[in-house]
């Protein structure tokens, strides 16, 4: 069986994000970028399925500028077999990403597509769901446990009320949640081996996908700086203060 795993290059989780002076977006120049943590979990799950003998081939796909290749290389170093780089320099909306992934999937014919549940830059949590819909495939989102038996997929999902177990037939789209697994570190020998693995390149035009957005980012601002609070001594004082601030 073959899996397509989407990996996104995002600002590293530890970076203090700053808004650009002109308010057009977030500062990315010279800022540390890494693979989206949920995508790492997706790659790890695919590699574990391969180690169990369920998957024969893992293709890591990333959509982005030239540097997205580094992200694909990390996936290769973790155990993916080959990569696919869809070159595009601008920020893409989830719908465009889903359309591109559909085009790639139609070429590669995977039995499952693994994505992170959301990217930590836009927090959209849309691509997996849109992709499944476009492909007409079942979807198992927020996966915290994945079991594959033959062409039967059983996924435990983390939902607000607790855990939900669903079953479906492959092919399907799975989006990974935090507790699904703990991604491995790419060891040095595997980093070196990854250099020899193939990364194919393509672009939206070649895939025949229109990625023009119907959305335009008008303004990006930082959240208001947190104001200091006050300490109150009694419930009466609390009520008085709330009334004072016209909050009740």
């Amino acid at each position, binding site marked *: 069986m073959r899996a397509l795993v989407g990996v996104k290059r995002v600002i590293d989780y530890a970076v203090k994000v700053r808004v650009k002076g002109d308010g057009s977006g977030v500062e990315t120049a010279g800022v540390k970028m890494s693979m989206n943590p949920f995508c790492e979990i997706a790659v790890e799950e695919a590699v574990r399925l391969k180690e169990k003998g369920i998957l024969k081939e893992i293709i890591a796909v990333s959509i982005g500028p030239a540097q997205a290749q580094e992200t694909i290389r990390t996936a290769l170093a973790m155990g993916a077999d080959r990569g696919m780089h869809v070159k595009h320099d601008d920020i893409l909306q989830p719908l465009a990403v889903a359309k591109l992934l559909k085009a790639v999937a139609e070429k590669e014919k995977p039995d499952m597509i693994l994505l992170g549940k959301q990217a930590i830059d836009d927090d959209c949590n849309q691509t997996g769901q849109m992709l499944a819909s476009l492909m007409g495939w079942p979807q198992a989102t927020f996966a915290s446990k994945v079991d594959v038996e033959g062409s039967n997929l059983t996924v435990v999902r983390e939902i607000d009320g607790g855990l939900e177990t669903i079953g479906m037939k492959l092919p399907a789209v799975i989006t990974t949640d935090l507790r699904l697994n703990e991604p491995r570190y790419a060891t040095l*020998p595997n980093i070196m081996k990854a250099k020899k693995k193939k990364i194919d390149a393509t672009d939206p035009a070649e895939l025949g996908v229109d990625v023009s957005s119907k959305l335009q980012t008008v303004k990006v601002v930082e959240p208001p700086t947190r104001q200091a609070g006050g300490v109150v001594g009694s419930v009466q004082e609390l009520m008085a203060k709330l009334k004072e601030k016209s909050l009740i």
Partner: protein
Amino acid sequence: MDKCPSDQQQTDTNRSIVAHPWRHDPEPTSRPAVTALSEEELALKEHVSAFAKEVIGPKVREMDDKGVMDPEIIAACFEMGIMGIEAPVEYGGVGLGFTAACVVIEEIAKVDPAVAVMVDIHNTLNITAFNRYATTEQKEKYFPRLCKSALSSFCLSESGSGSDAFALKTKAEWDEASQEWVLNGTKSWISNSKEAEIFIIFANTDFSEAHKGITAFIVDKSNPGIAVGAKEDKLGIRASSTCEVTLENCRVSKDAMLGKRGQGYKMAIELLNEGRIGIGAQMVGLALGAFENTLPYLHERKQFGRSVADFQGMQFQYARALMEIEAAKVLVYNAARLKEAKAPFVMEAAMAKLKATEVAQSTASQCIDWLGGIGFTKGMPAEKYYRDSKIGTIYEGTSNIQLVTIAKQIQAGYRV
């Protein structure tokens, strides 16, 4: 470890912070900067950095308090593949160059200089010794272990011979009857020894030849004639074990000789000349780790209505400190590249080690000053970097020895 929440507060000043625009590695051009790294080296740097912060980071304080290298950390280092950086791929190594080793050591030292020195000694002294001097049989026998699971120790110093290394007293006598070398003596200050499985021992096979009798031998921990003594209770790099290693009628076959008889002193000199660049990398990492753990706090701490970092007096100090770190870094990586290019590098290596170790001490010390009272407590990492830095100017050639080495190189150009 929770990496994902996008609403995670990023004001944790005890964390090693990550991105500064001025720190990204320069793009290679036709005449790249000395500190420019290849694509592989950059990938290494990134992965090892994450490994160091996430795997080693949480255990640093405990290992230092207890003075014990956590066996899980040693195993993790082997699993990560950083214990055979320059070893050939066919034996389980990664087959990379010396600069790659320096990059790995630097990244680990940013988090824990004690773990970094363990990785440094194993790679730049012992793996290199096998790379350069071992026979094919010895490589086949030892490399797989050295790369996958067996920590090693480099045993040269003795209580009576530190800087005067070749006045060592450990002797190796040939037993014709049993066709074995018999080693007797005591080595002091041996790093990694508590956990090591493979020891490179320098012993003299013929004292009448003075240093020309010194020979290197490979001794396995399982040999009944080798014993590791109690650990030194040290000021710094406390997790790195430093013990006496005693050889008492330690019998080894002639196949245990590493290199040729009498080649030992030359081997030791060559290995230490290179190894000290690795120490330079460790100390640059230490300095950067101390610096990067301090600067965020300086920006958050306010006194007299302003960030402490905004006072010009402070600005002058930390600007100068980073300049010194950059200077040391350039010296270290220049020496590393010279060595890789097989160009003369002895003087540059000595300069790199000397500078980096002094910079590490002054940076770590200043970091405590900048932090103020809190820097003096174990709650902040600064005091550990300060204690760890002190050994830099002492081991693998004291600063005075480095100065003598540099002077000799200078004088060689002026002698009539």
